[in-house]
């Protein structure tokens, strides 16, 4: 029932709600699971100095990012009793309101998924070389920095 094989993490463009629904549906044959926890990162239309963010254009140092995603996956399976884990991150343009990060963990027990999901999301934010160009409505831009 354990699903530990590496997956491709990066997806071109936004992650659709339909894709997320299908991912959930695929877990209904895994009847040892009692709890799922899902994190979704969504692009905010932040207003900065009077200009509104209309999209983020994501790039990554892909070779290193894949190593880091794999390290995070292995650390999470080592640390937590997870049945499954899936991570998807967008590359390219993701518009405000669209989803750019989808992290999905499943376990027999709920306590585990809460801890594991936060662990994974924080590691992604801190360790994975992904870069985001915030594009304003007037086509100017600035570079996003995680806090």
């Amino acid at each position, binding site marked *: 029932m354990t699903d530990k094989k590496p997956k491709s993490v990066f997806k071109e463009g936004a992650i659709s709600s339909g894709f997320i629904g299908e991912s959930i549906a695929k877990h209904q044959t895994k009847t040892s699971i009692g709890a799922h926890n899902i994190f979704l*990162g969504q692009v905010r239309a932040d207003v900065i100095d009077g200009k509104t963010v209309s999209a*983020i254009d*994501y*790039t*990554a*140092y892909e*070779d*290193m990012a894949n*190593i880091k995603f794999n390290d995070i996956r292995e650390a999470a399976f080592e640390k937590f009793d997870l049945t499954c884990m899936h991570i998807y*991150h967008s590359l390219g343009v993701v518009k405000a309101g669209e989803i*750019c*990060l989808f992290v999905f963990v499943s376990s027999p027990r709920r306590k585990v998924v809460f801890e594991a999901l936060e662990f994974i*999301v924080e590691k*992604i*934010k*801190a*360790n*994975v*070389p*992904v*870069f*985001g*160009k915030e594009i304003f409505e007037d086509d100017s831009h600035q*570079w*996003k*920095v*995680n806090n």
Partner: protein
Amino acid sequence: MNISIKYFGFIAEVTDCEEETISFSGTTISELLDVLHSKYEALKNNDFQVAQNQSLVPFETEITGKEIALLPPFAGG
């Protein structure tokens, strides 16, 4: 020694390229950065981290790999 250097995010804007090969005779990342600072005056050390062979390394590290990358702050998610 020829070293391949990758640039990302706003660093790639400063260098106006995503990758270049530099001929280099020094030994440490720090010495390589001196070369890059001469070439690109807008580069500042506090704006990026350096990866060697896909791992972050301190600037005093000896260059052993063929691939160096200058990485601005991460913005995943």
